[in-house]
């Protein structure tokens, strides 16, 4: 899994590529904690390169969401596809998170 963040219009765009499973999600947690500690509070998760997400990955997203909520921040998820989209649908995470089709429309959710 590759995870990279860059700031755009005051929000942190986090591009996650590869797979978020029980092992790699720990790395995701770690990087997000670093960004949170650095003061970031508005995240856009770019999942256009995310190929796979298991319950461990969803757990990481949920934890991130709860932490941001406590800081009055927000996370929007963009560009889910394939099995990731399927997982979001069946798990109901579409109602937990704001999910958008593109980075541009994700910006619009802030």
């Amino acid at each position, binding site marked *: 899994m590759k995870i990279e963040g860059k700031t755009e219009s005051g929000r942190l765009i986090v591009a996650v590529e590869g797979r978020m499973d*029980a092992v790699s999600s720990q790395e995701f947690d770690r990087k997000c904690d670093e960004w949170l500690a650095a003061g970031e509070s508005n995240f856009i998760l770019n999942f256009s390169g995310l190929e*796979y997400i*298991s*319950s461990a990955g969803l757990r990481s997203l949920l934890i991130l969401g709860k932490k941001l909520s406590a800081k009055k921040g927000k996370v929007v998820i963009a560009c889910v596809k394939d099995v990731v989209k*399927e997982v979001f649908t069946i798990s109901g995470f579409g109602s937990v998170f704001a999910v958008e089709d593109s980075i541009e429309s994700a910006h619009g959710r802030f």
Partner: protein
Amino acid sequence: MDLLRLPARLESLEAFLEFIAVRARTSGFSILQTKELQLAVEEAVVNVVHHAYPHSAGEIEVKWRPGAVPGQAEIDIEDTGIPFDPRSAAAPDLRAGLEERKVGGLGIFFIDQMTEETIWRRDGSKNILTLVFAPRPGGSAEKSKAANPLDSNFPLESMTREIHRKGDVLFRAGDPAGKMYFIASGSLRLPEIDKVVPEGEVIGEMGLLSPFHIRTASAVCEEDCIVYSIDKEEVTRLFTLNSELAFKIVHLCVQRFIENLRAETEAKERIQSELRIARDIQAAMLPRVFPPFPDRTEFEIFALMEPAKEVGGDFYDFFLIDHDHLGVAIGDVSGKGVPAALFMAICKTLLKTEALRGLSPGEILTRLNRTLIAENEMMMFVTVFFLSLDLRTGEIAYANGGHPPPFVSNGSGGFEPLSGPTGTFLGIVDVCRFETISRRLGPGETIFLYSDGVSEATNSALELFAEARIKKTLDQSEGRTAEAIVARMRDAVRAFAEGTAPSDDITIVALTLAGRAAATA
């Protein structure tokens, strides 16, 4: 028994997921379905890792059992830890929002969602969770058949797992063919044919089965790859044990042959269509608007050139040198096809350039010859006949560079070959001079130029059309328009050839002086 046993730690997860992915892809599951399988297996494995061995280390065993048809499978996840039925966990609240949503509970939920059936049982000291998979309609947009060329279980137990880094060369073109490979993850590139072979495909089987046992292309890893290889001896052994697999590998090879053939045919067709375009371009180079000078009533002219292949080496040309002189040329480049066509273009252009200087035909050919010799690395040669007609008087001056002499009206209703030296062809030898001959054409008289594709046309009895038939056809065309003369000659040659393909380009030009009422064709 197809199983993998590893310590019950998170570090083992990757290996378990790959174990499942490889079997799923070779059993007819699409990429999406394979990920669904992996999701279910991950949840089951992670459950065991977190809960089964609270006080000690233990192991997990994952077993793969293919189903009766592609797209079906059963997977057992076994552990010897504390009795634990994963289905007993509470279901998640799917409608909860961020605040209310609990972090746990999704594992078994995913397992249920991705499987046809989930069975748990306790057997002695073992927990056995069985996941039953069947393809769900609409579960994937991909063709799972394309994912598995063999469409049956691959004998992975008999194969060797190899890890390769990006850039590794699996085999080179020209190497003796040794192994066949299944790409479990990653992709390979075949640089000679610029083709990328993706995950899930088989490569190298042609080398094992082709008569020459030599690799026809190289294979390079586009990215880090995991492949399963099997060598010829093992394949031979498998063929005798598993005739169904043998048949399927042969089927795969035949498919590849057909694909390669189709690609080659397409490439050939592309070339053919380029040649057809070239034919049109070449045809457009020769003047083909008739009548070419509608305001000049002193003469009629008509011409055609039909190449034997798509493009040819014959040409004709006519143009007004000045207000009172018409230049007419005919030529034939050695050979046929693209090289002749290119040389023809050069000759025709150079000839016109020289002719427009107003020199005598003999001098024109001499100068043309010198110019062609100077730049003729390919040693091509061309026969050329050129005449200049004085439109006020009917006098023609002409010179011949090795071309069949034209026919001309003989004054008593028939035709005869034009007198004068035939000369020698241009492009090779620097001839001192080409001779200019003159004669007069009377009103209504015709001069008929042709290339040897006409005289050398053959029929099925291998007879030649020959000058005799040309003369006979012309004699019967006396009094007709230039266009009709040309058309009749072309029809006569076609009829003579009885449908056999012409072996040479056919070029015909007829020039008639005005002075008699043009008879109807």
